[in-house]
């Protein structure tokens, strides 16, 4: 039986001492979009950007959470690297892996410095209707909980001998029907959680047309610097492609 280190949620914890923690979430959304754009560039420019990005993470005290987040993808990265190298070329393998590392890193950057309430508020300010901004921020908040619930379901089913045998690819294929012992409870728990939150939010006037926002967002000098710096970097990277 697989024993799990329960209590260690894989949810990203907020890095309170990061300077980015005080930046406007809209700025961080902009930074994330900028990085997502940069992954489209060539390998040479990507390497230059990566160097700048590492320096930026060092300044933001986010190297450790970012590396931890990327580390979880190690097997995907290794497989991807070798398949691409084998099937296409070494350059292509490096490029694809770098792109994935950057995209994963940007996810860690955003969610290590922004809580879901701030994300919801940023989306609202960007004119996403409140209903959808709220739902999206709740969905991100629930990711860690889903991970914990999945682990508990596995434990509960293994304790009654109902855990599907997926120790090898062939066993996974032949026992795929047995996955129902995991998927049904997962769907039930997720649906129940979603329903409980729906009830709790409506019981607190979620659909009120009089709603006001208690928190507000404001651009500071830090935000101006970050947005300007990122734009300059983008112009330099994409200048004369």
């Amino acid at each position, binding site marked *: 039986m697989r024993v799990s280190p329960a209590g260690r949620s894989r949810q990203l914890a907020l890095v309170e001492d990061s300077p980015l923690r005080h930046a406007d979430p809209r700025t961080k959304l902009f930074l994330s979009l900028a990085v997502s754009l940069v992954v489209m560039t060539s390998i040479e420019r990507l390497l230059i950007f990566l160097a700048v990005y590492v320096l930026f993470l060092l300044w933001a005290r986010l190297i450790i959470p970012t590396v931890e987040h990327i580390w979880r993808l190690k097997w995907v990265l290794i497989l991807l690297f070798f398949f691409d190298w084998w099937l296409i070329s070494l350059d292509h393998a490096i490029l694809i892996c770098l792109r994935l590392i950057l995209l994963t890193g940007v996810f860690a950057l955003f969610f290590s410095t922004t809580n879901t309430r701030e994300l919801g508020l940023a989306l609202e300010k960007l004119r996403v209707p409140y209903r959808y901004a709220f739902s999206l921020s709740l969905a991100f*908040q629930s990711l860690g909980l889903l991970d914990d619930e999945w682990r508990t379901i596995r434990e509960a089913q293994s304790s009654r001998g109902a855990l599907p045998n997926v120790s090898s690819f062939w066993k996974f294929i032949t026992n795929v029907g047995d996955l*129902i012992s995991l998927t049904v409870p997962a769907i039930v728990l997720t649906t129940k959680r979603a329903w409980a939150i729906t009830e709790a939010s409506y019981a607190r*006037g979620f659909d009120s047309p009089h709603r006001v926002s208690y928190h507000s967002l404001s651009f500071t000098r830090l935000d101006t610097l970050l947005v300007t710096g990122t734009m300059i970097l983008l112009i330099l990277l994409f200048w004369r492609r």
Partner: protein
Amino acid sequence: MLRANQISFRYPQEGHGLSPISLNVERGRITLVTGPSGCGKSTLARCLMGLIPHLYNGEMTGEVWLNGYRTDEVPMWQLAEKAGMVFQNPAAQMLAPTVEDEIIFGLENLGWAHDEITIRLETALTDFNLAHMRHRNPQTLSGGEQQRLALAAILARQPDALILDEPLSMLDTTAATELIAYLQKFAVSGKALVMFEHRHEYLDGLPELHHIALDGKERETEFLSANLSARERFKLNIDQLQVQLGKREVIQNLDLEMNSGQIVAIVGRNGVGKTTLLRSLAGLQKHDGKVTVNTAHGNETPNFGIAFQNPDLQMFNASVRDEMLYRLPNPDLNYFRWLISALGLERYENTPPLLLSEGEKKRVALGLVLMRQPAHGLLLDEPSLGQDQLHKTILIRLLRTLADAGQLVIMTTHDLTLASHADRLILLGPGGEVIADGLSDAVLNDSSAWQKSGILLPDWFLRGRMESQ
């Protein structure tokens, strides 16, 4: 204030819900609604709040009036301005990343000015002793703290009526007693309060209590005794058990010995590590130290069946029968027949377990673990949660039958009545340390140990013990 005229509700697929009922909830007193598992208490609570018919499809008859509004004629947000509802599972209703955001959410929806929200927020944090944890994630709080937060988030909105669906079920006696004190204050201030609860002992004797007992379709279930084959005697040894969860050492150097043929109750406040201990014994939790079973033939790896607090973790089959017999190569059908009857589930044999009430699902979860006939016994995490009195009695008799057959039954519980039926009671302190360990009666009489543990022995419990002695 809150009035229901002959309301009934039928869920579209399940075919049951709530039988016609009328009730009147007046200001200034607590209305307590009790009834057996599955009689429709939660459905009635949702009808009173207006969640039925606003969020639920189904067939509703009759009418509910809330402070002059007919609930099916005004939008949900307007009802939410007049009444608040606290649900059974506090963790499931948390929707914000911090404690203060949880309270602010409801206040923002009222459209109050920033300064007004700040005042309400600070008052709620102080009144419910949450100020020191205002920046914490609600999911990291203990059950008692979460229940307090759920109540604070509702009461900060200053509703005229409060509806609570089994708010005590997950709380230890101290947290439950504190909660009742808050609720009394709320009712005395001229507000209407209706509470749906199995654990009505906490409210018995309160002045101005209006008690409504709902009829259930639950039949008296006769417990069939059985001669289970006797197991070989053994001893469970827990040697220097240590468990670390994140940075917190939940169990520190725990040494215990337990003999087969006993029911052992582990009692302690919310969050002291009771469930972690059970998980360690079941082999599900990474730990230091040794957990072994000593038999006449030497040491063995423990083989316990574990019934979890949340039965939904395990249910996926199309019927209770399929669920209990899943993947058993040669099931003992005589044992199955006895078990399904002993658990009061005979009439649900062909019903999908997911359609049963929470209490019934818990009994199915217990049944499927017992059908596997684990070699050394059973681990139960809060087995009486969601069970009415009748099924609690059945549960106690079932556990006694298993213990008499030589199995070791270890359960964690907040339910002191259930704990008093155990042979041995282990009382854990705030740091997870053993404060008292011995015969149940002896530990229950050791008032200084209970004081140290932070668990209050409620008056109703002490009175009951004196009467039975």
